[in-house]
């Protein structure tokens, strides 16, 4: 009864929420229900809900967790993401501190604009840039090696190089963007802290260590938590555009998302693909909850919720 009274009273306002609610329902909630595919023996003609249940019901997971390809993808995803998170934190906080120490406003602004630029282009374009650099015959980097008298490196056939390449590319694209939040944090620090510290004889370095870094801690914790929650998810666009279908590189570059994509669109192993997807969602959820709980213990204000 109460419900109807509220609708009668404020119906026109609620109506404004309908479009976004419908869109979220169709493209977020319906796929969430669709995760049951992971427990089914998927049959194209019968659809998600009509397909038979797998027998036993965890069969797809059994298959997934004994497949060497899937395990390799899971391992690569986690290791690469850990690398991305750690290096990312250092680069972003580092650049923010560097920029913050620079006195020339104009230089600071220009530098920020330039480092932010790579954020604007798509992974496909980044893929072209990378190819430009690393291509064997006339990539700029190999030309440089040749000029230096060193041997060229066939990057597109050497999986060993790719964790390093991917980390560098990731930083190239996102450092400027990631720095913004830290810079905002630094700008908002009351300058009297620094003045007081300077009077007490603290060097620039000590000021960074005892004022700047502690003030940035909450931002660092939140962003790291978010990243940890997504540790089983890779940036599909990045891997697809930079590495593409290059099986010679899969040893270090095949991640869960590219594995799922291949299973879905190429090899047609739908149940396997959705089992991996389901695993990603569950792990992400548990990790977000878990790391949030840890953050609450350490520093209440830094927790996400």
């Amino acid at each position, binding site marked *: 009864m109460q419900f109807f009274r509220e609708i009668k009273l404020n119906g026109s306002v609620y109506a404004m929420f309908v479009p976004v609610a419908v869109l979220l329902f169709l493209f977020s909630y319906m796929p969430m229900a669709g995760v049951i*595919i992971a427990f089914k023996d998927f049959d194209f003609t019968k659809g998600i809900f009509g397909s038979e249940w797998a027998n036993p019901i965890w069969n797809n997971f059994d298959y997934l967790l004994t497949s060497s390809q899937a395990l390799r993808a899971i391992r690569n995803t986690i290791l690469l993401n850990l690398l991305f998170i750690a290096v990312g934190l250092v680069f972003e906080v580092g650049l923010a501190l560097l920029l913050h120490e620079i006195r020339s406003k104009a230089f600071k602004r220009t530098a920020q604009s*330039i480092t932010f630029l790579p954020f604007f282009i798509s992974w496909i374009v980044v893929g072209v840039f990378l190819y*430009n650099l690393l291509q064997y015959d006339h990539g700029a980097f190999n030309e440089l090696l040749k000029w230096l008298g060193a041997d060229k490196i066939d990057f597109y056939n050497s999986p060993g190089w790719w964790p390093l390449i991917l980390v560098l590319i990731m930083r190239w694209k996102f450092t400027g*963007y990631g720095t913004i939040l830290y810079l905002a944090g630094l700008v908002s620090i009351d300058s009297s802290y620094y003045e007081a510290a300077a009077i007490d004889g603290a060097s620039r370095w000590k000021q960074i260590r005892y004022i700047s870094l502690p003030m940035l801690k909450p931002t660092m914790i939140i962003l790291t938590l978010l990243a940890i929650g997504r540790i089983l998810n890779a940036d*599909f666009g990045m891997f697809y555009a930079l590495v593409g279908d290059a099986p010679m590189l899969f040893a270090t570059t095949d991640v869960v*998302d590219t594995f799922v994509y291949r299973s879905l669109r190429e090899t047609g192993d739908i149940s396997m693909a959705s089992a991996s997807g389901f695993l990603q969602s569950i792990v992400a959820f548990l990790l977000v909850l878990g790391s949030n709980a840890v953050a609450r213990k350490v520093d209440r204000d830094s927790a996400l919720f």
Partner: protein
Amino acid sequence: MASKKMDVTQACLLAIVSILCILCIIPFLMVISGSLSTEKDIVDYGYTLIPKHLTLLSYKVLLLGSGRILDAYGVTVLVTAIGTVLALLVNSMGAYVLTRKALKYRNILSVYALITLLFNGGMVPWYFVCVNYLHLQDSLLALILPALGNAFNMYLVRNYMLSVPEEIYESAKMDGAGDLKYFFRFMLPLSKPVLATVGLFTALAYWNDWFIALMLVNKQELQPLQLILRTIVSNIEFVKNSGNAMDIQRLTAQLPSEGIKMAATVITIGPIVFLYPFVQKYFVKGIMIGAVKG
């Protein structure tokens, strides 16, 4: 003495940051240079920062040889424009509802949206929902709809709208304006900064998207720019075999396949780089608004 030391520090800082900046733009310069170089120079000397012999041949071949790059431009511009306007409307209306404190079910709606940020079904169920249940395939709608509703952007707008003083609402109410009228007449104009930010985020996402197209669009004439670029990059034959055969054949003998890849890349990023100086400050502001917790 002290100031002398400080200047050395400053000089070092400027040097380090300058080097980082140069590293950021070098790839852009190399692609532009590559697109203007002759094929022979690329083969002989590799990619360089400054073209040895300037030529527009790559651009000519690309634009003459393939109407498809122009089609793709059309698709991308259309999808970006329609998508951005609709997304702004839909998400800001939703955001507005979340700011009306008098609503009893406001928190339920907020949680409804929040859940979509925390969980997702993943690629496979998403694909089947789009294809089997919504029949979104090979249409402009398929390129626009899936990315339209966005809880994150909605929260960004809501956070901003919360800062608009309640008194304006009260007085509009007194003058007999309903919520819809208040929203369009007062709230939207007052929210311009955040709408600019979210609009730019959305436009950028639509312009750079190719994942949705990769999944849902098979028809060639509906493929957006980024996907065409990928095809060109991975398969230069595409250019040779399509479009105006007479013109192409004349040029094929000296077809600058590396140059064409670079030219296509430049064409794809062109508008973004031109827009960049104007929109960059909005982005920075917008990300900071987004940083506000809640």
